[in-house]
């Protein structure tokens, strides 16, 4: 008798979740260090398919695939800067963190950074990430000159927006479903210093915050507003900035003006009772946060880490929501649907979903990618603990409002929308599917998100 029990897991299997720590699934995990390893993992794939995974910062189920082979790309992480052309060529698993550490002291910055630098280049392209400069600079995909994609049948394609526009834009925002992004070349921007010159102003209520953003966002490269989700008024703090020029610094600081040390300061404890983050504690935090900022302040100098990545200073901060995990609800609505911003804050407050990270931002124009999230208008992102009773119904009501307003949800954050919602709000899904079916006819690449949303 030599039969092997189908119930015994093999040693390479792991339970994976997204950053929100909800809906785990188990997969075979491969850890390549180069493209040869990736090809081997692709050849030996599970019958349930393959998915590339980066640093796991998608909140939901975008970077997991139950029963499939998940290729952890973080070991494929080389990159190089070409200062002459202001471009970086990076492997898919290279992190923005590592790239920033190398290029900031040499006077360059990434074209787009999200609220965490712990994302890979492959993930940044697959989710077509955006940052505080979206209104002026667009999303990450707009800055990619070329990328190398490994397809399900083992071919390595070089995609560019000029030579292969359909395949390129299906891969940008394609959530890893067209193939494995092995490497990419993207533009970087020159900076004089590693500091950000920041202007801060407070808005007394939501209307005030939104009016201030409409009036002045276009004057700045970077801008974002934090909203006090617990205060009925919807008051907030708007921070805007740009890379500080050398002449904006005091003479004494100029010698070290390109120093960059985004050190991790603390780690969140792993055992946190799930009720710790409740409306009361969030109210106290928000009050302190609002008071901490002056009504108006100009030309404050902040570090890159403090301005762009404040939460990266707290390792594993996702644990503060307790064992049931959390999700981030992020939608975009066109300006004509601005009222949805207020309604959503009210509905979330009423269901008792305390969010201390509620962020409002204006988006600029979309790019040609059929599944890219941003569109001109308002985007709101709110963290909510998954344990809140009745949250599923409230978010479905919000989905309806977002869809009616002509908006949509961000795949990199989603962990609960319906397949119907995607079909209503991403009208170019079928166009994308036609390109994907051509690029991956055997449907080798799949994820829990793709199965859940029937992408």
């Amino acid at each position, binding site marked *: 008798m030599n039969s092997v029990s*189908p*119930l015994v*897991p093999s040693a390479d299997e792991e*339970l994976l979740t997204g950053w*929100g720590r*909800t*809906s*785990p*699934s*188990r*997969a075979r995990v491969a850890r390549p260090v180069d493209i040869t390893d990736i090809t081997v993992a692709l050849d030996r794939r599970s019958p*349930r398919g393959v998915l590339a995974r980066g640093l796991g910062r998608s909140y*939901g*189920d975008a970077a997991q*695939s*139950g*029963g*499939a082979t998940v290729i952890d790309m973080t070991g494929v992480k080389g990159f190089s800067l070409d200062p002459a052309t202001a471009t970086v060529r990076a492997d898919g698993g290279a992190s923005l963190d590592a790239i920033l550490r190398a290029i900031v002291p040499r006077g360059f910055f990434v074209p787009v950074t999200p609220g965490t630098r712990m994302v890979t280049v492959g993930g940044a392209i697959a989710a077509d990430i955006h940052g505080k400069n979206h209104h002026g600079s667009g999303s990450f995909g707009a800055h990619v000159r070329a990328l190398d994609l490994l397809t399900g049948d083992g071919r390595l394609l070089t995609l560019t927006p000029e030579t292969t526009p359909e395949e390129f834009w299906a891969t940008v925002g394609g959530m890893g479903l067209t193939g494995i992004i092995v490497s990419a070349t993207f533009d970087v921007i020159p900076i004089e210093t590693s500091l950000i010159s920041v202007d801060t102003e407070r808005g007394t209520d939501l209307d005030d915050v939104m009016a201030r953003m409409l009036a002045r966002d276009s004057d700045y490269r970077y801008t974002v507003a934090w909203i006090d989700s617990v205060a009925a008024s919807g008051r907030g703090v708007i921070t805007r900035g740009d890379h500080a020029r050398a002449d904006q610094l005091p003479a004494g600081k100029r010698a070290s003006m390109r120093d960059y040390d985004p050190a991790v300061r603390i780690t969140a404890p792993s055992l946190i009772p799930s009720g710790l983050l409740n409306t009361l504690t969030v109210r106290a935090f928000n009050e302190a946060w609002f008071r901490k900022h002056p009504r108006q302040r100009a030309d404050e100098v902040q570090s890159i880490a403090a301005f762009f990545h404040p939460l990266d200073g707290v390792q594993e901060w996702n644990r503060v929501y307790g064992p049931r*995990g959390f*999700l981030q609800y992020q939608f975009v609505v066109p300006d004509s649907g601005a009222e949805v911003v207020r309604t959503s804050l009210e509905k979330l407050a009423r269901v008792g979903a305390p969010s201390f990270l509620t962020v409002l931002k204006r988006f600029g124009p979309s790019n040609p990618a059929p599944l890219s999230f941003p569109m001109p208008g308002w985007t709101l992102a709110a963290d909510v603990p*998954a344990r809140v009773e009745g*949250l*599923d*119904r409230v*978010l*479905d009501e919000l989905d309806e409002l977002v869809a009616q307003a002509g908006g949509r949800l961000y795949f990199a954050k989603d*962990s*609960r929308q*319906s*397949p119907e919602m995607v079909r209503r709000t991403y009208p170019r899904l079928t166009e994308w599917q036609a390109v994907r079916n051509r690029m991956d006819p055997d449907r080798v690449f799949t994820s*829990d998100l793709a*199965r*859940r949303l029937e992408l």
Partner: protein
Amino acid sequence: MIDALGDPQSVLVLGGSSEIANATVLALPRARLRRVVLAGRPGPALDAAAQRLTGAGVAGVMTADFDAANTASHKQVIDGIFDAGDIDIVILAFGVLGDQMQVEADPALAVEIATVNYTGAVSVGLHVARRLRGQGHGHLVVLSSVAGDRARRSNYVYGSTKAGLDAFAQGLGDALAGSGASVLVVRPGMVRTRMSAGLPEAPMTSDPEEVARVIVAGLRKGKHTVYAPGPLRFLMTAVKAVPRPIFRKLPQ
């Protein structure tokens, strides 16, 4: 997938006309539900169950032929259902009670009960477990019974099949630990269903809807064993401690 807020997309009921399983389907969050397979012996009872669920607004209800006693067919049935798409929740709900007095007179009837309740459940349970492990997520809900906690004069053949099934389900849950799939063992007391119709009511008798609520709450909290109603757990601890000479004389 069961989404971040616990809403499932697909359910398979083995023993498709089971009242407890159907009540459970109705008690689950419904907004994402798009495939409910009621597997059982074809006939009016199965069709009626499917119609009731559809009539109650459950989307994607369909039936599949399944005979718990025909273990040779189980692989094909289960693979067919899972090949058509992942299943988030499987409810193993079939079982027969039998009449203890008839069973004692005709041991062939006891074999039938044991074949359906135990042999059939072990067979299909292993096939389901293989598929859940393969997909890396999902829950198997096994309807056991407090009758398996302690054998009683009035139904010990039935009780012994549930004792065996319960031990099997616990072991299977341990085998699947960490696989992404899990097993929830449900031990209801007496439930007002077709199976118990005409029998005198025991203490803590409940309705299928109450058992369903316990199951849904157990799934949500990630429990591995639940009693229905919950306090039966304490009653059964006491019952198990009663010495046999005394237990035998208690009203059965």
